[in-house]
């Protein structure tokens, strides 16, 4: 497959760029933060996104979706990285919809996917239990009692966990932490009895929560897929999530670069533009080169997912690892090259580093994906 996007994708990218720049720029995130928004995103903005069909892009036509694919959705998500737009798009329309589509029964897909596509349902994936991503290290217990499962345990860093209608929970019905077999997936109402939600205020001012489950009763009908066999779908959904985190990080790397390059062409020191200093020129040129590599790995990961390539996990880990590395460089260089003004809250450049680290950490950073890449390559 040629490493280029087609005309339809280009149009979607441009329309997303225009829409987000007008309705959801960085100042919108600042406003949500400063106003202490309860849900952490604008319901009006989400409604507009849904009306444009964004929530339906990954959902099959049979369940009320557009089935437009990952390269298409990736163009939108890359733009949300440029504008740091907060919305349920990632947790519901990407990760949630993908997991339900991969693991769910016909009845679950019909009910849940249609509602996500219509913007009537939001979801949050509850997978990690410790501070580092480890999808096999699941201890949360799910014990079958009659027509219910009873869930006990804790989850951390659950994106949209305090606002989503449904929690998609990975719990263990057999085996021990570290094993991939024995993991089961459940659809749980966030307001179900025994679910304690603690919203975590994080550095990026975005949504996340820690959850505690105490004797939470889940009807057997809300088991997502087969008991004990949830890991394959979970892993595939996490690959999809990581490809989009890489796409968002690509937007962050590009936007922080563009803003810094502009600053190098405006700011004068010692009577000359700071962009005339070779010390900064070479660092900017290296940074730009790294961003060029990032564009390629993100596109390749999205294309691999669209074509069902067996190498998708490798491509996704390459993309996520590379983007973790380069956005660290990008956001640090952005602040250094902006100088003192880069340290202020009034100036927007600092918002990019604050979002870059949580997005990199979610579902595994460089160490996780580097290790996974090597293992997939046999060493």
């Amino acid at each position, binding site marked *: 497959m*040629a*490493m*280029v996007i087609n005309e339809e994708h280009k149009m979607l990218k441009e329309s997303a760029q225009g829409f987000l720049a007008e309705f959801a720029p960085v100042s919108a995130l600042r406003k949500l933060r400063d106003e202490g928004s309860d849900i952490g995103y604008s319901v009006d903005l989400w409604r507009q996104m849904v009306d444009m069909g964004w929530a339906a892009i990954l959902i099959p036509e049979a369940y009320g979706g557009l089935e437009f694919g990952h390269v298409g959705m990736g163009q939108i998500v890359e733009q949300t990285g440029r504008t740091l737009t907060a919305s349920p798009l990632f947790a519901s329309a990407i990760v949630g919809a993908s997991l339900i589509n991969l693991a769910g029964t016909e009845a679950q897909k019909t009910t849940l996917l249609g509602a996500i596509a219509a913007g009537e349902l939001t979801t949050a994936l509850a997978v990690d239990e410790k501070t580092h991503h480890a999808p096999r290290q699941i201890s949360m217990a799910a014990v079958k009692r009659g027509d219910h499962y009873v869930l006990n345990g804790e989850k951390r860093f659950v994106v949209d966990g305090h606002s989503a209608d449904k929690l998609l929970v990975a719990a263990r019905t057999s085996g021990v932490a570290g094993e991939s077999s024995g993991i089961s997936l459940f659809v749980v109402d966030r307001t179900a009895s025994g679910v304690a939600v603690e919203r975590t205020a994080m550095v990026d001012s975005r949504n996340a929560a820690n959850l505690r489950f105490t004797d939470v009763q889940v009807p057997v009908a809300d088991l997502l897929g087969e008991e004990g066999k949830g890991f394959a779908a979970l892993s595939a959904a996490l690959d999809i999530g990581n490809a989009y985190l890489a796409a968002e990080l690509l937007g962050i790397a590009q936007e922080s670069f563009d803003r810094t*390059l502009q600053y*190098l*062409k405006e700011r004068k020191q010692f009577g000359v*533009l700071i*962009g*005339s200093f*070779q010390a*900064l*020129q*070479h660092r*900017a*040129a*290296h940074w*730009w*080169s790294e961003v*060029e*590599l*990032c*564009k*390629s*790995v993100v*596109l*390749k990961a999205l294309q691999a997912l669209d074509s069902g390539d067996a190498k998708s996990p490798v491509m996704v880990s*390459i993309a996520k*690892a*590379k983007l973790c590395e380069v956005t660290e460089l990008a956001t640090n260089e952005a602040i250094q090259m902006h100088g003192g003004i880069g340290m202020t809250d009034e100036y927007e450049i600092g918002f990019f580093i604050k979002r870059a680290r949580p997005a990199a950490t979610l579902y595994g950073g460089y160490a996780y994906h*580097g*290790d996974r*890449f*090597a*293992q997939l*390559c*046999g*060493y």
Partner: protein
Amino acid sequence: MKREMIGGFGLTTAGSDTLGKIAANAVGMEHGRMADTILRAEVLKWEIDAAAFALTAERVTDEVKSGQGVGATSAMLKYYGTELNKRRFETMMKIHGSDAMIWEGAASKGGWMPRTWLRTKGNSIEGGTSEVQLNIIAKNILGLG
């Protein structure tokens, strides 16, 4: 043109083992991972960067073919490709340890490893140094005066 140039950097030799496989064979495996974990980290970082670079060369070529590219990326490919090749041989030297420094004799194929490693130091000098490439990127692509 670019594909040939990149082939010339020695990054993609058809039929040869990947750096990861070479490393795993040389230092052995332990609990399913390469035994030397620090060296493993260096190897995997190189392989990720090399994969990203190869995909970028492919993307640049495809963009030019489809009329989307600006064709101004050859300085970046030269800069990144030669730096990658130098890193590759530094890592190869670590993988092969003391054997990597044997300069003469049939067993070392006439000192192929150390001689090739030292030759790579010229990659980022010949055909325009890395610093010249960075200048070209800064001035011609980024418009920094």
